[in-house]
């Protein structure tokens, strides 16, 4: 882990007094390697280690007092600060219907997370959720969402696979109004940020739904591409939050830092398993220490 690597780098540091710029640079090499292995984006690693180096130099660390630990602490603090120092909350509409739209690449975990989120928000905020099936492409996507709805005893609105998503969402909003639903969570089909036609479909759904939250679902094992994907979704839709899934795996999750650093999108939740109660509020310090390994 990073502490061990710092110790190794420090074996090359000689003499007394303050750590020199060269000593710090040796340690930054270890930080860079560790972050790249954790899947943090190459350019983010560059700018992050630059910041950390300046901080470390500014703190005038003495060689005698376990400098490795002090630098690790600076890295950890800077990382936690970047992840967002306090937990980011969901934007709830306290006077009407809260509307949420789930977006992201294929297979990221949107459908499962839509169910988890409806379940969590219903409990913590005592709302009556409506799940809306807007994926008319993937085989059995609607069945998947309906099954999830049944397992949670949450209503699912769907109009089958031959009606356009923009029409489905419009009718869903009317249905929600008429049936006392004060929370709408729209599940959309997975799509590539470079698929113009499919991204345009999301823009149209957004224009009709006018969601309070557009949540980008990101697989926590995503590598260098996380920045490209998040930036593109953000540019085209103005994403309001992210959900990192499959954090019950053993990936270090550096995509979280890249996402945050480049787009400033706050990470709001973490998917911690396949069951519908396995969604937790995002903890920045836990993510920071996980990325550092």
């Amino acid at each position, binding site marked *: 882990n990073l502490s061990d690597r710092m110790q190794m780098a420090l074996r090359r540091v000689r003499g007394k007094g303050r750590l020199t710029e060269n000593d710090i640079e040796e340690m930054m090499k270890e930080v860079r*390697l560790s972050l*790249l*292995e*954790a*899947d943090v*984006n*190459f350019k983010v690693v560059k700018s992050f280690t630059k910041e950390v180096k300046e901080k470390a130099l500014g703190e005038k660390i003495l060689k005698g007092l376990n400098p490795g630990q002090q630098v690790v602490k600076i890295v950890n603090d800077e990382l936690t600060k970047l992840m967002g120092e306090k937990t980011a909350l969901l934007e709830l509409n306290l006077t009407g219907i809260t509307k949420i739209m789930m977006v992201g*690449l*294929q*297979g*990221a*975990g949107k459908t499962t997370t839509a169910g988890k989120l409806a379940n969590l928000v219903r409990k913590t905020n005592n709302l009556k959720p409506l799940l809306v099936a807007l994926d008319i*492409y*993937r*085989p*059995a*996507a609607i*069945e*998947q*969402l309906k*099954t*999830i709805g049944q*397992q949670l005893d949450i209503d699912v609105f769907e109009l089958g696979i031959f009606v356009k998503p923009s029409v489905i969402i419009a009718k869903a909003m009317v249905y929600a109004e008429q049936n006392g639903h004060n929370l709408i969570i729209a599940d959309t089909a997975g799509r*590539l*940020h*470079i698929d113009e036609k499919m991204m345009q479909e999301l823009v149209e759904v957004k224009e009709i739904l006018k969601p309070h939250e557009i949540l980008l679902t990101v*697989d926590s*094992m*995503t*590598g*260098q*591409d*996380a920045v*490209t*994907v998040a930036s593109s979704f953000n540019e085209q839709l103005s994403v309001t939050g992210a959900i990192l899934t*499959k954090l*019950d*795996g*053993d*990936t*270090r999750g*550096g*995509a979280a830092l890249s996402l945050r650093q480049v787009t400033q999108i706050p990470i709001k939740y973490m998917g911690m398993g*396949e069951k519908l109660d396995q969604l937790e509020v995002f903890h920045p310090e836990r993510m920071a220490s996980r990325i550092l390994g």
Partner: protein
Amino acid sequence: IDSNSKFDDDFFDELEEIFIMADIGVNTVVKFVAHLRSEIELNKTESSDDVKDLIVEEMFKLYVKDEIVSSNLDILDDRLNIVLFVGVNGVGKTTTIGKIAYEYLNKGKKVMMVAGDTFRAGAIEQLKIWSERVKCSFYSKEEGSDPSSVIYDAIQLAKETSVDLLLIDTAGRLQNKINLMKELEKVNKVIGREVPEAPHETLLVIDATTGQNGLVQAKVFNEVTDITGVVLSKLDGTAKGGIALGIKDELNIPIKYVGLGEKIEDLEPFDIEEYIYGLFA
């Protein structure tokens, strides 16, 4: 690389950046770029065209390692062939089965799909729809059945109905879930008992957007099954799937196919030269 570039530190830094951003993995990249650099200095390579050729040649060598690497599947006439699909959640296993069924039906093979994912909502129905799209036979039991029993029954039926190719879908599972890896180990044993030498292929589906964890996935899945190839899915996105090169480098598992979209024809046999050029596109 333009025709005026000098091969200095900046050039090699930039090359490292391209390879790291392709998710190839720091250790493989550093090793490779250092080797490239010494080759260029040794041969006193001058022109940018020569350097381009050298890069392609060296990446090719890194992948091939002096062996014949084929992207063909071990599917023979006159026997029941079994292909097992494994991988973590959401990577494209079920969709890839649809694509491979389509390919082999067009080659005149009798194909059967097995719904080995008895757990996830809508999983059985999803595979059933694929079997209807390609028009091949399909076997499943009720949701919640033991996957090994579904697969056992499917193999008996496949033998009775002279199926040429049995494609087995499994539930997505993260490699650190010990009980799920044990379940997969049991599935593998059942297949091997019922058909000698089976599964003839065990394909690990890897999402092209996956970072360094892809290598861990390959290592652990290879402990409970004999992974014969990787399907690199979603290569139609912007990710380069470089971790598959890392998997070949460290475990010598070849890439058999690349997934290039969500439709039935969006699958191609892997071509290392095409892939290398794609890194610079």
